[in-house]
């Protein structure tokens, strides 16, 4: 495997498209339910937790892109290979791929649950899985350009949904946001951790970076994208905090969907039916992006065909999903992946950037010494 990987020129895209890709990897089915878990953790100051988590995410994203900029055109697979060598690098890569498979299972399962609870109580899970799998496979086999196209469309869908969520503000009780004081720092940290799970996804820049045509602008657009996601999450958190009472927020599983129920016209009610249905596109674009990353990793490491890998992954996801039935199990799955994601997205990049810094400075010194020795040899 080569460390640097320069894709064909017609596969490269403008850094501007990172704006759509990153927010689309971050925002998925989690947007419907994230407020509740944060509220359970830290109460009415949940919005502070969202802001802190967002700022931390910006910092992590900065460090990720800093590492990537040290290389010419490498992705995480290549960097692992470079830093940890052949065997340890492959093991780390496989860990990452495994995490993405788990994420795919979780995304699918959460979306199926929403469809089953809100639209069709009787629909068997396999129908939804097959629909999602067809879409995902068709998208991911089209390559990165098609996936980014779906991301662009997804962006408009998210924007419209957020605009719809303005309507509950007319019943807002603003002093539910107050008082701004942190009673228990532990609770706040817990909230920030839970928010981290929702924010995860910006680490796709690890894998998209080699495809960016003008790499010097990647940093700017990636941060814009993360900023957009943070604003969306913050907005939805504030809306649910000022609209719902504390008890309601504790009990409702999907506050964002409950918010949409407020939207009413004389010719149309229950907008959430439409939003949940359209959310299939949003879900699918995240899935396609992760499937593409898995296929890419397998292609880089073992030169396997990405389409074959996509089919295998989707089959695995199918089997895993069929076996998860209860809400409790879904909750356990989410918690498990939440921990994984916190480790791989938030802690690992910081760790890696230290390691990369040490290794690179060590190599540089060695190079310099080697160069000096070389020069002195020439002198003699």
């Amino acid at each position: 495997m080569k460390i640097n990987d320069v894709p064909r020129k017609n596969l490269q895209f403008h850094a501007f498209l990172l704006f759509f890709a990153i927010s689309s990897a971050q925002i998925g089915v989690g947007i419907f339910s994230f407020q509740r878990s944060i509220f359970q953790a830290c109460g009415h100051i949940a919005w502070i937790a969202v802001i802190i988590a967002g700022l931390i995410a910006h910092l992590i994203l900065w460090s990720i892109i800093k590492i990537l900029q040290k290389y010419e055109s490498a992705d995480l697979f290549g960097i692992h290979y470079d830093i940890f060598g052949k065997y340890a690098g492959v093991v780390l890569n496989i860990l990452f791929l495994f995490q993405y498979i788990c994420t795919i299972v979780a995304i699918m399962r959460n979306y199926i649950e929403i469809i089953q609870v809100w639209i069709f109580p009787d629909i068997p899970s396999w129908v939804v899985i097959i629909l999602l799998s067809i879409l995902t496979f068709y998208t991911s086999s089209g390559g990165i350009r098609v996936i980014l196209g779906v991301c662009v469309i997804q962006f408009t869908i998210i924007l419209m949904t957020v605009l719809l969520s303005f309507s509950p503000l007319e019943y807002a009780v603003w002093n539910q946001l107050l008082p701004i004081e942190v009673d228990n720092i532990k609770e706040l940290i817990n909230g920030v951790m839970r928010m981290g799970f929702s924010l995860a996804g910006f680490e796709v820049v690890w894998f998209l970076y080699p495809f960016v045509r003008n790499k010097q602008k990647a940093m700017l657009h990636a941060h814009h994208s993360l900023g957009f996601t943070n604003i969306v999450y913050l907005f939805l958190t504030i809306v649910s905090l000022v609209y719902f009472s504390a008890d309601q927020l504790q009990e409702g599983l999907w506050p964002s969907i409950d918010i949409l129920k407020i939207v009413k016209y004389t010719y149309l009610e229950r907008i959430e039916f439409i939003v949940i249905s359209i959310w299939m596109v949003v879900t699918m674009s995240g899935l396609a992006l992760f499937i593409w990353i898995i296929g890419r990793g397998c292609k880089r490491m073992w030169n396997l065909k990405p389409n074959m890998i996509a089919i295998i992954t989707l089959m695995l996801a199918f089997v895993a999903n069929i076996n998860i039935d209860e809400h409790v199990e879904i909750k356990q799955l989410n918690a498990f992946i939440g921990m994984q994601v916190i480790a791989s997205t938030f802690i690992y990049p910081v760790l890696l950037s230290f390691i990369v810094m040490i290794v690179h400075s060590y190599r540089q010194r060695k190079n310099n010494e080697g160069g000096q020795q070389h020069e002195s040899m020439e002198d003699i």
Partner: protein
Amino acid sequence: MSFYSESIRNKLKEILHSGDGFVVRGIGKSFAVSYVAGMVDIHQLNMHVLECLTDKGPVESIENVREWIAIGECEVMPSLHEATEKLLSGYAVVSLAGTPHILVVNVMKIPTRTPSVPTIESTIYGPAISFTESMELNIALLRSYISSENLIQESIQLATETNTKTNIFYMMGTETNPFIDTIRSRMKTCRFKGLIGSPMLLQLLQDNQYSLFPEMSLSERPDVAAQALLEGKIVIFVEGNAQVIIGPNSFFDFFYSIEDRYSLWGVGIFNRTLRSMAFFISIYLTPLYVAALTFHYQMIPLTLIVPLIESRTTIPFPPLLETLILEITIELLREAGARLPTKVGQTMSIVGAIVVGQAAVAAGFTSNTLIMLIALAALGTFTTPNYRMGATLRIIRFPMLIVAGTLGLPGIAFLSALIIVHLLRMTSYGKPYLFPIYPPNKDGFINNMLLTASSLFRFRTDLTKNNRASFRTAARRWFSSNEKDE
């Protein structure tokens, strides 16, 4: 009849598998003139060929004969065998005893009609003339719009049994046309048993031959062809076809009418918005009705659901079946209208209106609400300026109805997503099919989709541009080249 002309006749019979239909006329002892009856202009033949050849003494070579004949297109062919193709396309063949060389003279007169008013793409403003079945006439029409030396004509002989002639037109600009090589090689490699209509050629030239969505369009209007050329596209003329092939197009090109540019820009934008609304109405209106009444009646507020249910109380069918019956009726009416002669067609439409409008409701087959929705959806498909795209939209509605009836709104979302991904995957000669939307392009968006004000309009967009040089640099280059000329 001279001995020489008899020998030419026998030779021709041999080449043409002893077929009939050609005339051989011997003049003196050494000349023979042959042509296919009905394909030549008899007046020209008499005046400029036969009269020149009578009462001439012995001549040495065929080149001398060529000097006498006062017709522009005269060509010397090495043998009779090679001249046969010309003979069959309406040339007069002059042969001279004692030499194998043959002179072919263009006195062709293929029956054609005079250019008339466009009937398929009619507009209110703009030129009212359309192409005919004669390629020469069509080329003359096009050249009357663009009389520039940058308009390049390139004739290509297709590998067919019909020997159909085709001509490619494109504009030579500051940059080379990126599609011309691909189109040329595709036209040369595609093999037909026989090419009769340009739509057959069009399908083989597309990137995605199995897609439902068209990539190249047909037009009968010379002004549409001229505009396409100025946009950097390619126009293909096929002999014997009144419609020229224009391509490559992006998805949105199929929703623009040339009239948007003729009307005031505000009106143009309004019409385009109307058409894009019609697009959504035609695809989604009836499926949404089916989905809402089958699964999601909670979505419809009480004030609206009461009249809806009331109008459906006597109907024995589920909403999906009810809608399918009516949709198929509409399609039957359309197909019958297209196949029938015009005079019968009028009676047909009256029958259709009565059957669909009155009797279906009275018989308790469908509800009044649905008739209104179906009529709107049908109108929506017919506002699409391009008939090929309109046909595609009509077909898409049927699977959409079926998923709406079986899976409700998630089904509609699924099929829409599938179509969007399909469109995203499609390319039109290597360029993305959904161009100004994805990849998002500000210039293309303003230029192509929003503004029609002529001061802001420029022809070439990134879809047809070869390099990614911005408009400013292109303009600078244009200005500087003008200065050099002075």
